[in-house]
């Protein structure tokens, strides 16, 4: 057996997780009920039970350097069954939130997005950039005359420069964060952490294959597109309280494809503009326009569902953290100001339409540029975790008989 690790608890980390909505963590007495009911837990990887003790003991490296916390889709079954109301699903959510800040590159951005005092600064950046652009375009003195056309207000080129740069920076940040996470996982060799509960002894049964040699990109992407993990979350009836599983799959699917649609819309507009010289605004009946509006509506509806489902939960202390709400509001305001500017444009209310459009751009900037640091970063980390775990089979699970109801989805493995 390898030399045992010297444990060096980081109590500040523990305190931070407690304050990020994991306050009930202390009640955990490691019975393991959560791991029995969790759809992604395996015999070798008793998630989230082991994460609970790692946080209790302030073992930051262990808690943050494993794929499981991002394989979890927060169905809440563990919290529903927990006999001591320790709410493991909230602790896992807090861990994810913490890890976004932890792996953020540059590090400052992680802090900026997690503390309210930096919010004005975060808004000031796009406002100043956009104002400078407007100043350079000479639009600060007066609004454009005549029919409301947003490209008369903010030139397409300027938007392209600003947003391409912002997106590029975001991509770099995301790539760095993802890489740091991957590296941390490889270092602790987590794919096959077989725990010694005193029930068995000896080395883990098998060593992970070098994950890099077997990255399963296509299956993982298919997994994400199908929301396969989300679907696993809805299998069994719950214990003593409600879970999130009833709404998560549908709402997230809507928001996911809504964003995909919006991205396609943007791409189509670019292609239309540059390849075919087809200037905006396009009429409402145009298929691309329809795609954009339907996608926007899907996002908006999903957001409402998420927000409504969050509200009854507010009775639970410490559950909804700042970054949770920030993310929801930014999404909501982005979509909201988008629709509003479109409506105001069609109503020819120039005085309102242009400032609304400006605000819309600010929110879009916020959303795009800060992707790796907001809750949006789950896109990055969850994908990394899925990619990392896919070859090891950790993401797969043969469900315990007791819970595998007739309606349980077959767990056909994508990995050969």
């Amino acid at each position, binding site marked *: 057996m390898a030399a045992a690790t010297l444990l060096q608890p980081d109590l500040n980390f523990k305190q931070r997780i407690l304050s990020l909505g994991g306050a009930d963590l202390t009640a955990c007495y490691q019975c393991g009920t959560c791991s029995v009911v969790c759809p992604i837990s395996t015999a070798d990887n008793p998630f989230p039970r*082991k994460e609970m003790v790692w946080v*209790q003991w302030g073992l930051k490296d262990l808690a943050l350097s494993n794929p499981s916390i991002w394989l979890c889709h927060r169905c809440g079954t563990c919290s529903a069954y927990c006999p001591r109301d320790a709410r493991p699903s909230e602790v896992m959510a807090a861990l994810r939130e913490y890890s976004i800040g932890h792996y953020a590159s540059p590090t400052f951005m992680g802090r900026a997005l997690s503390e309210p005092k930096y919010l004005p600064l975060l808004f000031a950046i796009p406002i100043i950039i956009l104002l400078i652009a407007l100043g350079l375009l000479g639009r600060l003195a007066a609004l454009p005359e005549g029919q409301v056309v947003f490209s008369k207000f903010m030139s397409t080129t300027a938007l392209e420069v600003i947003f391409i740069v912002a997106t590029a920076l975001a991509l770099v940040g995301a790539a760095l964060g993802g890489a740091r996470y991957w590296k941390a996982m490889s270092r602790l060799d987590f794919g096959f952490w077989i725990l010694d509960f005193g029930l068995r002894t000896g080395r883990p049964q098998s060593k992970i294959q070098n994950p890099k040699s077997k990255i399963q990109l296509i299956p993982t992407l298919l997994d994400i597109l199908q929301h396969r993990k989300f679907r696993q979350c809805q299998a069994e009836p719950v214990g003593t309280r409600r879970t999130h599983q009833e709404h998560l799959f549908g709402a997230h699917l809507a928001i996911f494809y809504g964003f995909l649609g919006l991205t396609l819309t943007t791409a189509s507009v670019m292609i239309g503009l540059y390849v075919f010289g087809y200037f905006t605004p396009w009429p409402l009946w145009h298929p691309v326009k329809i795609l954009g509006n339907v996608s926007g509506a899907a996002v908006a509806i999903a957001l409402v569902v998420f927000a409504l489902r969050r509200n009854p939960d507010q009775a639970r202390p410490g559950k909804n953290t700042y970054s949770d709400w920030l993310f929801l509001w930014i999404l909501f305001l982005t979509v909201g100001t988008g629709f509003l500017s479109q409506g105001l444009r069609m109503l020819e209310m120039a005085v309102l339409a242009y400032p609304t459009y400006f605000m819309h751009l600010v929110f879009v900037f916020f959303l795009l540029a800060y992707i790796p640091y907001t809750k949006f970063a789950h896109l990055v980390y969850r994908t990394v975790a899925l990619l990392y775990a896919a070859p090891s089979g950790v993401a797969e699970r043969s469900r315990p008989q007791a819970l595998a109801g007739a309606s349980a989805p077959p767990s056909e493995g994508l990995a050969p």
Partner: protein
Amino acid sequence: MGKKVGVYVCTGCGIGDCLDTRKLVELAETECRAPVVRSSSAFCLEDARLIRDDVEQQRVDSVVIAGCSSRVNAEVFFFKPAFVERVNIRERVTWGQPANDPETQSLAEDYLRMGIVRAQKAAPPVPYQEATERRVLVVGGGMAGMAAVIAAAKAGFEVVLVERSPRLGGFAARLHRQFPKHPPYRDLEAPAVAATIRELEQLPGVTVFTSSEIEQIEGQPGRFSVLVRREEGSAELRAGAIVLAAGWMPVEADVLAGYGLGRYPNVVTSVALEEMAAQGRIVRPSDGREVQSVGLILCDGPEDAAHLPYGGSVSSLVALKQAMYLREQAPSATVYLLYEDMQAPGLYEYFYRRVQEDPGVLLSRGVVRSMGEDSDGGILLEAEGTPIGGAVRLKVDLLVLSTGMRPATLGPNGPGILNLRYLQGGELPTSAFGYPDSHYICFPYETQRTGIYSAGAVRKPMDLAASAQDGAAAALKAIQCIEKSSAGAAVHPRVGDLSYPTFFLQKCTSCGRCTQECPFGALELDEKKRPVLNTNRCRRCGICMGACPVQIISFNDYSIDMLSGMIKAVGIPDEFEEKPRILALACENDACPALDMAGLRRLQYSAAVRVIPVRCLGSVNSILIADAVSRGFDGVALMGCRPGDDYQCHFIRGSELLRRRMDNVRETLDQLALESERVQVMEVTISEWEQIPQKLAELDEIVARVGPNPMKGF
């Protein structure tokens, strides 16, 4: 005999539909020649009056009621001064056997014969009474002892408290804090020692001897004569009953040597930590530095069981308490608590949660496998089996080892605590783990010496709150003992039994076996080495009667002559009838109720079985078994309790002694050229009634295999 027997055959509860009760009446009248015989279906209702009239007007002095089990309607069928014998033809016959079958009828008739014989041979017991002392002696002035004194004094009894040390309070007085005793069970408390001492001192009738020890105790419940050794010389006093509350002692230090105790200065026991905390700040013993990390380990892993085979909640709660005050003293310190089992029973769950809420207390299951010291005096631990993931290492400034609790009676002063002047020795016999106890589930507080009750941590590991409750409860048992002894009645488990064994000493061979086998040390020897009974120590089990090789021991209502007569009363069909007969001698405490339960559930078992209740299998003299076999019984079932460390016997050693006597029985059977497997010992617990048909069927099979008893007809 000069006894007037009245026989009352009940026809209710389905008895009349199953049996020919007229034949039973006829049998009582003609064969047994009972002067009064009646039959009714309502003896337990309005016709109880008929029996009462017979007792009062016809001078019937022995009432035989053939009907339901003696476990029901005891208060209805109580006709003082007559002796009442209940013949159970309801649960044992009617409810378990086919109706109107000749074997069923024969079974009922045999039971009636046996009952009438018993009634003829038994006399109502006459209590043995002597003046008794109504003072309670309490040994040990800790929490349990003080609670015992308070409870007894409040009940109006005089109490004498003997405490070895110069002041009261026991271990509680040495504690820094105790874990919560009051809602919301989240905060540590100061031990309530001073208040308890004040309360005790204000009560009337309480005498406290501190710096005193028991020099010797003689006598029996109600008449203990006690010599107390004091600095000012000995004091003599008399007591009716004794509460032993001598407390506990920590396990020997060498038991914990594997954890570095004694080798590394910064490894201490939980007792040492408590004393350090009581005196002031907790520091590292090696250099007096403040502690920044502390390891508390419960030492309750599988390997620790070799040193102390039992655990308890106390060490868990002590560790939680110490974690809490360590953190209060040093809010930046980290406290690790490793355990194999965390036990916080009852309301202490709130306390456990409270400690869990402290982010600086890190709790985990785990067993310490190895340890060492680093260059600056810190302790390095390696623990296995943690949920954290395999083996882990920890570095702490101070390591605290949970101290196991052992009864003070096992300590260096243990043997001298009571100094009993009993033939069987000066100490209290112990249970499996060395505690002076008789049966911790069925008979808490009762030791194996009648009239001496143990309470507090000398009885089992427990905390202060439990000790206080324990002391009060044991005091009430002591009072019960005084009251029963003064009435000449048994205290327990045969509460209120007025019978006691008498010895026909002219025939005594002075073998001394009865004095050795008595589980309660009730018998002493006189100058001719003959037994002398201390009646109030006796629990009336009859084990002495089973032991006596010359059968000179008997009770008024329970004797070898009586049992033998009952055996002989059974009609044995001759061998050509192919109707085997099996005698079952069944323990009254467990086997008999189990047989009744089987009847209640209408379970049918072998109709060849004739059951005779016995007080304890230990009271079965081997001559009875030989009697039964020579009488023609084809098999004998000895139905009783489980022996061993987790014995079930109410009299501790009865079933064990019977097994020893079985060797003699087998020898006797061999001499008679009879198969010794005809005699089978069966373990029956009250809850295993459903197994009774199966167990008896096995004996049936043996009898079928070895064939009928060749002694039939002799």
